[in-house]
């Protein structure tokens, strides 16, 4: 143990923090350390594999003797199963096995719910057999829309006999479950009703958001093989290899060691690819029944129906403020539908972005006959921030204040304040906010801003191994999966840093559960959870290497340094190059293990403000410039300035890609994406990517990305998350820009031409 001083805080604004009981063997990358590989813009080490088609995704896996599976799904959103007759299907050409996923008497509660799975020699044979399965349903009343489901006379999704999902402590009335009032974390404070009455300026507004489906370009799917020891080997598209291992082990009462899971590449997950999923379980059952490997990959329709979604929301927001813009009251009521599932709350950002003395929230899950929601890139936050930030802009207008000024008045977060400065400069905010709205023909330009928040989420107990071979090869091994954030490359950078090598000299093996357990890629926690473990593993390996070669270099091991591909002594004298040094090892390879333990103990200063805020939340601000065509209702996003933080920026190139991806997804949420359920039949009308519109590259504006490096002292590499906050404020900023351009806040997502033109017609904008 030793006493050390760290430099912590946002870059350029760091402070010295004492660390009393620092363990000797932990190297901490704080604000003063000089790094060569980490922080350097580094091209993805698998970029070539991806663009050349060499990367193998789950859908590319073909095993010898593999069968193709398909799932028979309910066409009805609400029905009782009277009869399942699959005898005919079983005798059809090529059919090898059927596994039931539902039984006679079961109630189906959404279109697409699984009935049974069929495996056959070819996909077409499986599909033909699926068509031959006869399921008799007694169709029951259904409800498709949030606000219809809230009414007293609505059909009820969960009748008396059947268990309502979710923790049972909340009251359930018809389809409405709740309210949840924040629990311990977001407990109500002050006297909101009185504060609203007392407020000098107040707004009372309603917002709505549609259901967004994940629309991963690679569908959910698995290929499953029965192994010699009675377990399974599984190739699957997952954002958590570990969760697939444990789900399958539990389902089949196996040891986790009997379940081996591979995932080399994922074509998108966004929160929808946790756990084994029914398709993996069905493939595993069929593999056992048929004694052949089985592949089940969902089609696009199933992706939309059962692949997960972001719940809808209806939000009623009340804000009160004093004359100088200080928030004095904040109240939100959120109703959302996660279909047959729960988790439609959206109140968190109302508690974590701004300070306010009087605050309360009421969150309700409303059941509808639709596929269950899944975690989706910052659950609850894009919808919550859309409404909160829309309300903030309307409050600013009433106050006669600049919207960013009002935000600064209420947001003490040191990073966020720096980000607002950077953003307003790069977006030319001060000038454009005054110069616009400006109209040329039918085109009106506007500019709008929004903030975002996310949390420091970390998965402990994950590990990594670093191996150094006598031929000089350095390998890092982890059962993590690269969801697209680029963890492969970041791991190479971290290890290269420790050995004084270049990232491309490190070989990275990930995506296989036989290696040390990795974190799930959700909650924006992959890099923050795993890089400290890899860092530690590399240091252990380096120490072992030094010890192994010190004797032949005639230098004490503790005096050896690894720098720029060389091995040098204390004085910087070059002794040899890395490869020659490794060649002096006796063993074929040495191995270092590292594990992610608790965040660094003893940095007590980080538990106090202002560092505490840095340690608990991450986020960013975005400013949107839009061109609104008031003749057609078409909104074009011309530019987004996005300023974010993610602790230490490990790889600026990949970090910027994360932000761009988040922004583009946010544009889809703002303008295009909407699951359409037919009211009368409860069926989805756009279960494809032609009429369910995700943004194309043609819709990507100029995206100007900036980062504020933050040295949190939270872990040895200083990495924090990024993927989720990147998409949180985009739709809100675009809506606020449309508000600036037209004087009418859109209030409903997506901002389609029909919605906007209707709002403008109702608001008198089109009455020329």
């Amino acid at each position, binding site marked *: 143990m030793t006493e050390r001083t760290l430099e912590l805080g946002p870059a350029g604004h760091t402070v010295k923090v004492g660390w009393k009981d620092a363990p000797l063997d932990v190297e901490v990358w704080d604000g003063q350390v000089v790094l060569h590989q980490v922080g350097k813009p580094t091209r993805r080490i698998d970029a070539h594999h991806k663009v050349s088609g060499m990367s193998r995704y789950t859908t590319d896996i073909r095993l010898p003797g593999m069968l193709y599976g398909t799932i028979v799904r309910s*066409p009805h959103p609400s029905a009782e199963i009277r009869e399942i007759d699959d005898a005919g299907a079983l005798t059809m050409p090529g059919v090898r096995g059927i596994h039931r996923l539902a039984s006679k008497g079961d109630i189906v509660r959404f279109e697409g719910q699984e009935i049974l799975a069929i495996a056959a020699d070819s996909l077409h044979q499986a599909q033909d057999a699926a068509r031959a399965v006869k399921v008799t349903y007694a169709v029951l009343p259904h409800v498709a829309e949030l606000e219809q489901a809230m009414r007293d006379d609505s059909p009820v999704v969960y009748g008396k006999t059947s268990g309502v999902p979710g923790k049972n402590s909340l009251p359930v009335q018809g389809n409405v479950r709740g309210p949840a009032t924040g629990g311990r974390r977001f407990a109500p404070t002050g006297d909101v009703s009185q504060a609203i009455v007392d407020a000098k300026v107040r707004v009372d507004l309603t917002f709505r958001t549609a259901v967004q489906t994940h629309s991963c370009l690679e569908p959910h799917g698995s290929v499953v093989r029965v192994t010699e020891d009675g377990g399974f080997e599984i190739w699957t598209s997952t954002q958590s290899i570990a969760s697939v291992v444990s789900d399958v082990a539990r389902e089949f009462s196996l040891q986790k060691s009997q379940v081996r899971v591979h995932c080399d590449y994922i074509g998108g997950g966004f929160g929808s690819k946790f756990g084994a999923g029914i398709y993996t379980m069905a493939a595993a059952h069929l593999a056992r029944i048929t004694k052949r490997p089985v592949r089940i990959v969902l089609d696009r329709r199933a992706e939309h129906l059962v692949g997960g979604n972001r719940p809808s929301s209806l939000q009623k927001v009340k804000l009160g403020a004093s004359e100088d813009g200080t928030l004095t009251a904040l109240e939100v009521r959120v109703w959302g539908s996660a279909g047959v599932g729960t988790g439609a709350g959206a109140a968190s950002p109302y508690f974590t972005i701004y300070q306010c003395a009087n605050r309360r929230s009421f969150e309700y899950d409303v059941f509808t006959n639709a596929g269950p929601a899944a975690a989706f890139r910052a659950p609850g936050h894009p919808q919550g921030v859309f409404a909160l930030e829309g309300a903030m802009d309307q409050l600013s207008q009433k106050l006669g204040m600049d919207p960013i000024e009002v935000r600064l008045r209420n947001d003490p977060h040191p990073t966020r304040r720096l980000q607002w400065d950077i953003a307003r400069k790069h977006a030319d905010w001060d000038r454009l906010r005054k110069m616009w709205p400006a109209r040329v023909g*039918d085109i009106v330009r506007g500019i709008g801003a929004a903030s975002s928040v996310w949390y420091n989420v970390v998965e402990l107990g994950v590990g990594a191994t670093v191996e150094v071979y006598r031929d000089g090869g350095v390998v890092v091994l982890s059962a993590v999966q690269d969801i697209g954030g680029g963890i492969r490359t970041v791991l190479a950078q971290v290890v290269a840093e420790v050995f004084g090598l270049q990232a491309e000299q490190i070989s990275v093996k990930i995506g296989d559960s036989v290696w040390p357990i990795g974190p799930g890629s959700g909650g924006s926690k992959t890099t923050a959870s795993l890089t400290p473990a890899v860092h530690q593993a590399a240091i252990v390996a380096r120490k072992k290497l030094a010890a192994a070669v010190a004797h032949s270099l005639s230098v004490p091991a503790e005096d050896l340094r690894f720098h720029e591909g060389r091995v040098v002594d204390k004085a910087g004298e070059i002794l040899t190059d890395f490869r020659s040094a490794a060649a002096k090892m006796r063993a074929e390879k040495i191995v270092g293990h590292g594990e992610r333990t608790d965040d660094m103990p003893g940095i007590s200063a980080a538990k106090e403000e202002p560092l505490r805020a840095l340690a608990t939340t991450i986020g960013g601000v975005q400013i949107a410039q839009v061109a609104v*065509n008031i*003749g*057609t*209702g*078409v909104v*074009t996003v011309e530019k987004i300035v996005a300023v974010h933080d993610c602790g230490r920026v490990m790889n600026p190139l990949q970090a910027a890609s994360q932000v761009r991806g988040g922004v583009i997804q946010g544009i889809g949420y703002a*303008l*295009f994406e909407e699951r*359409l359920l*037919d*009211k*009368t*039949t409860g*069926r989805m*009308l*756009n279960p494809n990517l*032609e*009429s369910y*519109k995700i*943004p*194309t*590259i*043609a*819709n990507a504006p100029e995206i100007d990305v900036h980062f504020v490096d933050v040295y949190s002292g939270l872990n040895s590499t200083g990495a924090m998350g990024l993927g989720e906050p990147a998409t949180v404020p985009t739709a809100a900023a675009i809506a606020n820009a449309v508000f600036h351009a037209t004087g009418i806040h859109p209030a409903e997502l997506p901002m*389609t*031409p*029909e919605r906007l*033109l*209707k709002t403008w*017609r109702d608001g008198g904008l*089109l009455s020329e």
Partner: protein
Amino acid sequence: MSWDEALAALADGEPGAIAKGAGIDLWDLLKEEIVKPDLMVSLLNIPGAKDIAKSDNTLVIGSMATLQMIADHTDVIQVAPSLAQAAGSAASPAIRNAATLAGNLCQRPRCGYFRSLLHPCLRKGGGRCFAQDGHHQNHAIFDTEGCIATSASSLGPVLVALEAMVSVRGPGGASRTLPVEKLFLMASQNPTREVDLRTGELLERVSIPLAGTINAYHKVRARDGFDWPMVEVAVGVRIDSRGIITSGRVVLGAVAMVPWRAFETEKLLLNTKLTNDVIRKGADVAAAGARPLRDNRHKVDIVRSAVRETLEKVRRIVDGAL
């Protein structure tokens, strides 16, 4: 394979045989099980069927020419720039490289209920229209009593504005020629078919008169790129030496099951110059007679805006020509 061999193959396969261009629309319909042919006859390799050539007084486009060929062809760009533009902005580059002229004109509507086997609607021979009180944001605003789907073809309105003719070849080699305008069927005329072809008839080619019009095309879509139009407008006018309009057609797309002529606008333009005032008035009356549905009034607004944009394009060309 020749046209006659293709026709014979189709006749042999009756019922249940269907002609195929690139199959872009057909595959979609097959996947959804909306069509279940026993036999598909590909027309793609018929010699000459992709040719685009200028004759004395017409520009002839073979029905298997792809949208991209049409968009890139110098004669098309010169005679009918609006057609080149419509072809060059439909769908996506990959689709344009494959999709054919005939397939484009004969493609089935995109109504989500029509494309869902689970909705036995009027157009599939069923008893009701689900869109009438369902989702119909992008449905018709004219002829909205029964089926309210719209024609999906962007080339249709342009060809009508260009006064193009279509040559149809029937069983036994019998040919007939009709104006493209007559090819399309209003929903109220026939709710189950979009084009007026008899069993076994094929589109062979389209001819556009060279005695040219000044023509322009404009499309409005919610998502710029790879999206269907909400409204599109094609205009073809003839002018005299003083810039006075002597004849003209203003045709709206995506507003009805047929390319919809805005007769009121056409009347208003006749014998006038395209002044600001004329353009504004022409745009204002373009949607005359529209009967929008509960949730698609915005299309009436968009028609106005789109017609104005298109007429302004025409004016710029006229100004350049004088």
